[in-house]
């Protein structure tokens, strides 16, 4: 046993797969101790992109520090009016025939550009004259939004009101005033942003990964156990039992498994699709190939000398199967189990992606996250990669690691593959 384990961990493939899988598993187990948030709680409104969000309100109450950053003004300008927007301003001024000599998009000349803009831009005028390149509603809207930003951000002096009612004091904020992020009462880090419901994607993803692993584990266990049982019985007992069991197995083989799953799932209805139910159904529809392989291996084993010896010694069927046959096919069963877990996770993801997954209100799963991301146009209109890409990555990593572990084991146990 010890020797086998050592061999197994010497296989680089198995080791890599094992490390990836354990990292995912440990993250799933440990993460909830650090972030105790309900994964389905809506925090933001719609898709928020990844980043740290700091309460504007609370920054007013945090202590201010004086920091002189030499590039502060340039950064500020770049953030509120990027060069792209300055180019748009310049293009518009050119299109409407204003004097643009000496104007460019550099930081130094921004004020000259702004003055020219303020002197020339007029919303009604833009609408009426439809200047070349700015004739469409979309372009004019862009100009108006740009203009609103120019008047609200750049030129206005900033002040904050502290307190309420009569006791309110107005304090002006200097450009060199800074707050320390850790002193702001409320801030939240959303490394993967939020999904369409405003849920923290990372927390949801971790929870969903855990649930998907659980689904895979239950489905894999059921499929393997069922397959093992049927395979052992059919292979060892043979005769009419074998015929009946293989008849059933053949029926399952000719019905496409995924179609069967879709039919069962939609017949069940969303309200009765719990996590366990889903896993069990995936399990009982995918035992066939395990059963067939186990059976063929058992058939080749059952006429070996040591089995015949056991028979002659009068050992019970149970004992012969467990002590004389099972140990010889155990390595194969373990490998089959790993693949079953992997395909169980994928099956759940596929079904949920089609909107047939577990009941969507209670728990997140990887497939459900994909489904909602798709429905809310995360990869089309909403432009929110963080809502679907990490999910795809996790699904890929899980099945990749499990398959690596499987081929690693294969290398160790299958003599024909040994180096």
């Amino acid at each position: 046993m010890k020797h086998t384990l050592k061999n197994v961990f010497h296989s680089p493939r198995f080791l890599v797969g094992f490390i990836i899988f354990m990292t995912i598993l440990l993250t799933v187990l440990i993460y909830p101790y650090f972030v105790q948030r309900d994964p389905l709680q809506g925090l933001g409104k719609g898709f928020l992109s990844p980043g740290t969000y700091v309460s504007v309100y609370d920054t007013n109450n945090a202590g201010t520090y004086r920091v002189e950053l030499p590039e502060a003004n340039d950064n500020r300008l770049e953030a509120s009016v990027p060069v792209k927007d300055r180019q748009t301003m310049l293009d518009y001024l050119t299109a409407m025939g204003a004097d643009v000599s000496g104007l460019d998009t550099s930081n130094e000349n921004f004020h000259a550009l702004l003055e020219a803009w303020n002197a020339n831009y007029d919303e009604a005028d833009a609408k009426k004259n439809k200047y070349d390149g700015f004739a469409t509603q979309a372009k004019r809207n862009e100009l108006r939004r740009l203009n609103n930003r120019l008047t609200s951000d750049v030129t206005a002096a900033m002040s904050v009101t502290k307190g309420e009612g009569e006791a309110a004091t107005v304090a002006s904020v200097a450009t060199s005033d800074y707050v320390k992020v850790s002193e702001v009462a409320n801030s939240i880090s959303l490394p993967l942003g939020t999904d369409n419901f405003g849920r923290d994607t990372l927390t949801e993803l971790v929870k969903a990964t855990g649930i998907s692993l659980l689904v895979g584990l239950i489905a894999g266990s059921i499929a393997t156990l069922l397959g093992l049982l049927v395979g052992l019985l059919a292979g060892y007992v043979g005769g009419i039992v074998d015929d009946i069991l293989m008849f059933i197995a053949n029926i399952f083989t000719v019905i496409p498994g995924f179609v069967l799953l879709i039919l069962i799932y939609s017949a069940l209805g969303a309200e009765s699709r719990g996590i366990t139910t889903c896993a069990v159904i995936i399990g009982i529809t995918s035992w066939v190939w395990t059963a067939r392989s186990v059976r063929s291996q058992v058939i080749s084993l059952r006429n070996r000398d040591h089995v015949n010896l056991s028979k002659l010694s009068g050992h019970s069927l149970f004992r012969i199967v467990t002590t004389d046959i099972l140990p010889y096919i155990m390595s194969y069963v373990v490998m089959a189990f790993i693949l079953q877990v992997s395909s169980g996770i994928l099956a759940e993801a596929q079904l949920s992606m089609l909107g047939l997954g577990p009941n969507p209100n209670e728990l997140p799963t990887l497939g459900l996250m994909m489904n909602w991301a798709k429905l809310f146009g995360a990869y089309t209109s909403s432009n929110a990669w963080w809502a679907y890409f990490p999910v795809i990555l996790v699904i890929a990593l899980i099945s990749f690691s499990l398959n690596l572990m499987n081929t690693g084991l294969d290398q160790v146990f299958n003599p024909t593959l040994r180096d």
Partner: protein
Amino acid sequence: MKKILALLLAAIMCLGAVSALAEVTDLPRNETLYFGGQQWDPVVGYNPLGDNMNNGLALSAAPRGTRTCMFETLYMFNGLDGQLYPLLADGAYEWNEDLTALTLKIKPAAKWSDGTPVTADDVVATWDVSTKIQNGTYTGYAPYIEGIENVDGAVVIKCKLNDAGQPANPLQVLNFLTGVYIVQKDWAEALCAKHNDDATAIRTDPTPDAVYSGPYGPYFANDQLVAFVRNDNYWGQDASMWGKLPAPKYLAHTIYKDNDATLVAFQAGQIDVNQQFIANVQKLWEEQGLPIATYSDEPPYGICATMPTAWYNMDIPVLQVKEVRKAIAMAVDYDNIIENAMTNQSPSFADVPRSVMNPTDGEQALYDHEAVADLQWVGKDIEGAKALLDSAGIVDSDGDGWREYNGEKISLKACCPDGWTDWQAAMNMVAEAGKAIGIEIIATFPTWDQYQTVFTKGSQTEYEIFMWSPAGAEPAAPWSRVRAFMSSEFVGVDNNWSGNFGHYKNERIDEIIRQIPLTTDPAELKALYTEATQIYLDEVPSFSLMYRPECFHAVNETVWTGYPEKDDGNNIPPMDCTDGYGIAALYNLELVDAE
């Protein structure tokens, strides 16, 4: 030999594919206006008298905005001001004293595509043939219209009278004016003769050669594309109508597989006018910088005229308890629905307090806001909802966290069709509200086929809470919406698409629904609408989840520009450049690159 044969076969297939493509892409981009979201699956036919023609661009009749590209109605409805604009009709219609007959004239310039003039006889024939073949026009309007006559060249629509000698419903007659395509008498009679007056055969004849009066006629249709070509002899270029021809020579609609495919094509500029819900539509221009615009570039981006509503099924005993209905409605977080499910494409219930009215100014002025202020709720009132349930004796007596009714745990299903994204998200939030107040609600998304057969049944116990929209803006609104919300005439009616899907009964409201169409005094009307609102908000037979545009309207200005926009002074509603008075937009379009 085999190789040559195989090569030959491959060559033939390639040629076939190329020629099919060539046919589809034949339309010059600069003369074609492409639509999205209006046509799914291939066109069946062009028969304005028929049923199930599945022809999104040519045959889409609804009083709020009938698509008049090919066939035309007497008037066009404009949801912006609630007015009827004459199309085939000449000037305004006139009611007689006791609202029993409506008279209108036909524009002298109006012509059919075969060059013959449109006359009052055609309107009469439209009604007579519809009556003969019992099509949708007939079943929809027969309860209100006795008959249509040609009196000295003028069209006279006679109302059906009730036992008291009053007109059954003058408002529904107005819906007829904007919601029914007029067909040519000769063509309709020839069609009847062709099928020996066999009603089913007439209703299912695809009639690709139908005589039409609108600006566009059939050009091409297969399972990938449907296209219409402008009739350059269109009568509307007469000064008495538009004064010119619509700008695009072709109207076309590529048939896409689903919403995602449509959206991708729209982003790529292959669709000019798109009617589909686009989550976070503002990101298309703010983040992706695409030349895409909506009616207004600020929330709610369009004109919200309808109210997707959650209906309670009164066939379920626990939902007959008023407090349960109200408590669930109070607990729902509507702001969350509007911000997350609708991505802000709806005004909030704080901005437009709930009533039976849509958010347009015209309807909002029709009820007394102060009189119902106590009854309006803004949502997310968990404590209030819990207290209400407690006071009604609906409590959790076995301590499992869920409330019971008659000793049984309350468990409800909240349903809407699968794939209706914003509705699905809304139903999820209703389920969350239930969880917060101790009532189990499970969001369930059946397929559309299944959904539509269940919720329209005369009585059903499968869906406890389900979604549908009442009438939006149309000539008969908001009366039609009060009726859709609460009229008991729909209780027990199978295949009911008209309203009161939850089968609510209230005698007083039935009385109000009878009175409103016959009331012309504004003060009296306002009192009736206020009372209807009070009953609706007190009894909560259903509750609106959000406001929603009548139709989504987003445009990509890669090729065309000059679409209707807010405050442009044109008074053209954002109705996809085709629906009701929205078709006026086609006459204002210009090419972005004129050369």
